[in-house]
């Protein structure tokens, strides 16, 4: 009885702090073009099928996206130009089946949308293969979560940057993680994923992408915008600009990024 009273008092304290969904009125700034041009060359495929999405920014609570459909989209190298065509079934998504990915090649993206011209350049970055996946069932911060590690070996002597994408069917949003090799150049290393509601039989889709330093910096900034925007520990939110420039009007810059990466992917079933 005395013990219970003591525990009850303590639980009162930890239960005391809480998160609650609240209504906050928000204003909307002027709309901007959003370009999601992530060219991914999955290992073991020819990489000819690629897509680029164009849309406009919308209010924070507005769920339906606003596609931009009447644009001209193409990616070119010194020798070739690949034209992307608006997919009628997915307005705002521009597709091609003729793209030719080459590791280390520089590509230029050109877009004409709503009377303005946009351009970006990037290099196609390679990635090492995923070595293996290990799983433990006593991981995570609470010591009771299923935790998986994606093992890879970083190439020595080169600056490498990685983007990991973990997706599980019962969670609507993916988990993105980014890494550099500052403290582990040339060594075998791993990326960790844990999720409290993971159970045996769940399938996790894992993608490992090699990215440029510039894309790494962009993602770092972008991912820090997600989640808390207020409070004593939060870094101050910023307007994150990617590498795409509006040639017609410098100040009307678009959001999003143009990147090209080699990708290794696999589906892992939780034991």
């Amino acid at each position, binding site marked *: 009885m005395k013990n219970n009273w003591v525990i009850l008092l303590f639980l009162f304290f930890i239960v005391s702090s809480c998160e609650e969904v609240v209504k906050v009125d928000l204003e909307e*700034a002027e709309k901007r073009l959003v370009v999601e041009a992530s060219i991914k060359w999955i290992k073991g495929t020819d990489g000819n099928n690629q897509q680029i999405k164009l849309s406009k920014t919308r209010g924070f609570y507005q769920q339906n996206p606003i596609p931009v459909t009447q644009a001209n989209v193409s990616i070119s190298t010194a020798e070739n130009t690949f034209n992307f065509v608006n997919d009628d079934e997915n307005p705002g998504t521009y597709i091609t089946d003729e793209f030719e990915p080459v590791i280390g090649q520089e590509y230029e993206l050109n877009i004409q949308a709503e009377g303005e011209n946009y351009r970006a350049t990037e290099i196609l970055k390679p990635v090492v293969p995923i070595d293996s996946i290990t799983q433990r069932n006593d991981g995570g911060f609470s010591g009771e979560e299923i935790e998986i590690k994606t093992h890879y070996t970083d190439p020595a002597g080169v600056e490498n940057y990685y983007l990991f994408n973990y997706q599980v069917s019962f969670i609507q949003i993916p988990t993105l993680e980014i890494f550099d090799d500052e403290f582990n150049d040339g060594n075998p290393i791993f990326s960790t994923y844990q999720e409290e509601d993971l159970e045996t039989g769940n399938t996790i889709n894992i993608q490992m992408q090699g990215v440029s330093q510039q894309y790494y910096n962009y993602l770092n900034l972008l991912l820090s915008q997600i989640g808390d925007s207020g409070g004593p520990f939060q870094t101050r939110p910023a307007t994150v600009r990617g590498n795409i420039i509006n040639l017609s009007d410098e100040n009307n810059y678009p959001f999003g990024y143009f990147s090209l990466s080699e990708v290794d992917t696999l589906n892992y079933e939780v034991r």
Partner: protein
Amino acid sequence: MVIISYDSYTQIKLSGKVVNETNNTPIKDAYLFITPINKAIKSNENGLFKTKLKPGDYTINVNYLGYKVYKKEISLTSNKELTILLQPKAESLEEVVLKEDIERLNIKDPQMSVNRLTAKTINRVPVVLGEADVIRSLIKLPGITNAGEGSSGFNVRGGGADQNLVLMDDATIYNSSHLFGLFSVFNPNAVKNLTLYKGGIPPRYGGRLSSVLDVDLKSGDLKDFKADANIGIVSSKLNLQGPIKDNKTSFYVGGRSSYAHLFLKLTDNSNSAYFYDMNLKLKHKFNKNNQLYFSGYLGRDVFSLDKSFKNTYGNAFANLRWKHRFNDNMNSDLSFTFTDYLYRLNLEFVGFEFDNGIYDFDINYDMKHYISSNIQFQYGLESIYHTFNPGYIRPTSASSGIEEDQLPRKYAFDNGAYFGVSQDITENLKLDYGLRLSAFYRLGQNEIPVYENNNPILYNETTNKYEEAEPIRTFNRSNTKIIESFYNLEPRISTAYSFSENSSVKASYNRMVQNMHLISNTSSPTPLDIWTPSGKFIKPQKLDQFAVGFFKELNDERFSLEIESFYKTIDNKIDYVDGADLIANDDVERFILNGEARSYGVEFLFKKNKGDFTGWLAYTLSRSEQRTPGRTPDEPGIADGDWYLANYDKTHDLSIVANYDWNKQWRFNASFIAQTGLPVNFPVGQFEFEGLNIPVFKGRNSNRLPAIHRLDISANYTPKKQNSWWEASWNFSIYNVYNRMNAAALSFEQNRNTGVNEAVRLSIFGIVPAVSYQIKF
């Protein structure tokens, strides 16, 4: 025939000494109240007093805590020397070492913008979990606030938490909180007295812009053993003091620890969050002219999550001090201090341990010199040798992919010399003025970077973003060589004009210079933040503060009113460009820009000092903002070079504290606060990228969190029937009585289950009741 005439302007000198009758020790800060003219004078550090009066009959009254009332009638016709012998009272009250009057408004003293607290007041302000706390009591005074629940440090007059010089027995404390602001590093029972200067900072202090919190610790009762223990829900403390040799040597030892984490173990949860700290102080009196003190402190915070993550940090110091009295008019104070601030992160599941820290060696020499009854000099020197370890990382297992690395240590030599004068110009006009010279030397180190055109930060016109510049080369220089030096003069002046016995006007100006900069990308310091010294790319921050105030005691000192207004302006205030990545990124010059800051406001404090019902009402109206323009007209700087609110700006800050002594058994306290919410940024749109909804933000600090208000109450019960060995009492408290969920943070996020965007409010404490038990031997 010689005619000797006394004209009515002749003044006769009355002087003497106030001593303890039983042991002849001088009594300082005793108020002599002279009737019928109602004049009050104070005895100095050596018990001496001096004043000038017209010839006539007077009564000298002295009522000093712990002593019987003294009354003597004198007839003044020529200069008189008087020794006032005070008889100690048979039973002494608690806190005999403290003076009750220390908190009372001093109408004539030019020192303004200062708050002094005794341990008694600190213990009477109800706080979370029933634990008294120094900083939580201070933030209920005007001009002092903090960034909310869960944040460490405090903000004074719109200044950042890194702009406060926090001293414990002369040692610099780099992180003043435990458990993210839940407790401060000061054990309230070990505190002898504390003084917080918000402005009009005396020349003997330097190194930070906004305030000085100077805490002196108890050195132990020279005659009797005493102990007190406090057992609370979350933490407990035990303090012991007494003589080692009667009237010669004494000690004070105190310790605190939290143990809430042990409850987690009961539920098979292997996480923990706890803190502990220990104080030890020794005092030895060689003779009446020489005293030696040793003070030591160790404090640690430990957070661990299942042994896969362990974070330890805290301050430690050792201080040796020699107080010497040359004669009745000259006292000196020489101290040596060694300080160690450590931050350690151990990530077992990745396989590394990361350390960073600061080590200081500090010598301080202060002299107080009474020239005459109207003039006093204070002068001295200070020298601190700083060593910074920005980061050391090592693998903790063979299979870890991490390589051992030591970021280059930094060294600096920080010196100050000051001279100050306290002068009584007339009976009613007093002036304190002085000058401090600071000389800061940045010393050599390894891997000093050299940038093209000396530009560590670049502006990319195509992407419209600031980017870090890569150094073109690095070089080494020995740490015995000076690579940068910064000399600054800091004038300080304050004045008080009393136009009656109980009202005065005060004004002050001070210039402060800060050479230690806290690199923090958040509104409130976290232990991850790194202190960096001034150098080639980071110039000293300079502040000018003007303050003006009106002070009045009402109704025979039952009430007091203080109204102060301040204006501060800062040059070389650095701020981070959007998206700076600070973790283990040592070359901070690559993502900071230079700007300016200013803050201004009005503070209002109304206190009831006497009676069963006491308390105060404090209100501050202020604004704190910054401006960081681009280096050229083509660059945007931050927020387009416009003024933006500082992260800790609070427009309105109201605190009401009330204490009621009902009878000998029961005592009640209540405190109410209401404040504007902190500035934040709300999203102004969203877009999708890589399957995530990304919020869009604009500007900096353009919105606010909802306003904060909260009521706390507590009751103290001392049972009538007491054991003859000890006195016990209970404290019952309720924090946040009406359970308002004050927003500590607002997140705009995507719900994982539905994928829909929503706003989530994080509150740290709802209603929290607590009980604690206190024993005094």
